[in-house]
């Protein structure tokens, strides 16, 4: 478990670099846009799709490398958030409160990672 958490902490540094990359990418593409809007947009992408997806897919960290987990984390997060928001809305919880869903997913992913029992082989593909 200690190795798993050390690996996770190391990868959080890469996550920070991913966020920095997003900011630079958005500014390079949307060069006419203000830095404030660029930062907000990059943060939205990061908070809604990349962070929750990363922590959920971390369950398979021994099978998938960092790049693959970041990429597949996006659709994972998108479908969970989209479906959850749909059902929560129908059950009467106003959509403006659904912004907390990504945070719940991040925490859930962390908990699952911590309680998951590792198999023997931790080698990434």
């Amino acid at each position, binding site marked *: 478990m200690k190795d798993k958490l050390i690996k996770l902490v190391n990868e959080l540094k*890469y996550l920070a670099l991913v966020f920095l*990359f997003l900011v630079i*990418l*958005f500014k*390079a*593409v*949307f*060069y*006419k*846009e203000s830095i404030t*809007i*660029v930062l*907000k*947009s990059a*943060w*939205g*992408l990061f*908070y*809604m799709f990349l962070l929750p997806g990363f922590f959920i*897919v971390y*369950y*398979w960290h021994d*099978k998938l*490398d*960092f*790049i*693959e987990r970041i*990429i*597949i984390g*996006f*659709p*994972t997060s*998108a*479908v*969970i*958030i*989209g*479906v959850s*928001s*749909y*059902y929560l*809305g*129908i059950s*009467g*919880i*106003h*959509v*403006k409160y*659904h*912004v907390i*869903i*990504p945070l719940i997913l991040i925490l859930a992913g962390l908990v699952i990672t911590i309680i998951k029992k590792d*198999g023997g082989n931790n080698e*990434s*593909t």
Partner: protein
Amino acid sequence: MNVFNKNLYEIIVLISIIYAALFLGAGNTLDHIIEHDRPYGYLASDAFWHEIYAEGIKETGSYKTYVPYIEGGFDDVVANNPPVLPHLAVMFSFVTGLNLFDAEILLVYLIAIVALLVFFMIIRRTNSFLAILSIPLALLLFKDKFSTVYTWGIWTYLSSTMFIISFAWSIDRLDMKKISLLMGLFLTGTIIGYFSNFIYSVGFIIFYFAIIFLLTHKLQISKLKEVGKGIIYAMLFSSYYLYIFYFTLYKTFGQLRGIIKASEFTGYRIPLITDLKWMGIIILVGFLSYLVFTKKKLRIVYLFPIFMFIASFANYIGFEKRALTVRYFWPVYLSVFFGLVFFMLINFIKIKQKTLIAVGISLGLIVSLSFYDYNNYSGSIMDPYHWEAFKWIGSNVNEGEEMLYFYSYALEQTAILMYGRTIPYIIRIKDLSPFIEAWAVPRNITMKIVKEAVAYIPYKKGPFSFGYHGKETPKEFWNPNRDICSFDYILIDKVQNEKVTQDYNQMVIGKLMESGNELVFNNPFSVIIKIQDKGDCV
């Protein structure tokens, strides 16, 4: 292990393709600005409809029913358009603070880029050099007819395509523990994103396992069990939407249609094989090379694109636009055969620096395909003058007051009328023509209520019984003959593309103003007149 050391050449190519894709797609269309003063990059009615569904969710807090003003005032219409994208857009808007129309179109482009990256991962599992040589072709997603999907609003198909490709990724990972859960989530995305992609997912499962069985005589029971679990999860996660879908979209439009050729379809700009141009020849060579030289032919990386290519011709068995829209992702699906040509060439020529050569070719392809057939698609059919008018209407026309839109060429994409947030009555040119000929102000005239009517405007009668306002209300309800003086406000465009209608509209404005009505809004393009005497305003 340092991710950069191991994957540096991949990271270089990925950064390049992501930058190029975002620049050519969202950057190009949105004029390199994220936040606009009006819906920008929206070039057809369908794009506006998707944004309007999302606006309804933001307004009401849920997607139980549509907002009444998009359905002729009915407040019980069951929301049935696929819900994933509008919910993601609303949340993205809340989190970023962006206007919803900016958030949604940006999200659409990001989803396309993620879809191509997931496919990159599928190819990469076979060979990472093959992946970096293949993925540049995906830049065609933002060129010519393939780019129609963003600006014309074919968005539910697009969002679901990310999920079907992710599903294919999960099929290639059936050795992973609990992968059925991820598979179930991605299949849910196809169901709640665009149901046809779920049909194709199931079709691919049958195709894939049937081919493996035919060629190897092995029925992979354990893998089939995982797939079965995935389908069950998907059914559970999407159960409520499946119930809605059955009684709405399926019952009204779920049947197979007649055969239609791609070149005859008029709804969208459908890509043809000839639109692949010289790249199509390379793809064909790659496919032939796959048949002749590739040893591991049964890999998902080859079978999935083959299946989706076949599926894109299902218009010949009645799938109509549900098959034709698959073609928009040919640049992704067929990229593996494109890359295979360069991959085999590099392996054939015995050189030492294969990594450098592969990266060089990949980057060269990215640059050349970026500049190839470069076009600027920026703009919007929502001009700033009408946007200003709609914002005025939304803020000043009270509940219970009625708004009439006089005929205008600028309002022919009628979805934009929904931004007035009031039931839109519009006078059509065919009904106005006799009055133009007579040079008379129309009093009693047939008009049209603009509405969303994809599934005949369904409503719940009971738990398993739905009615359809679109079928049950008489035609006269949606095309009433009314006195223009019975409205509270009338919007008339002073500017038209033809002199006769422009002069006519200005005559009508003049007559209404002479009769004592109040000019409450005026900009260089449009006026809004408040009717003072509903009995006799002209």
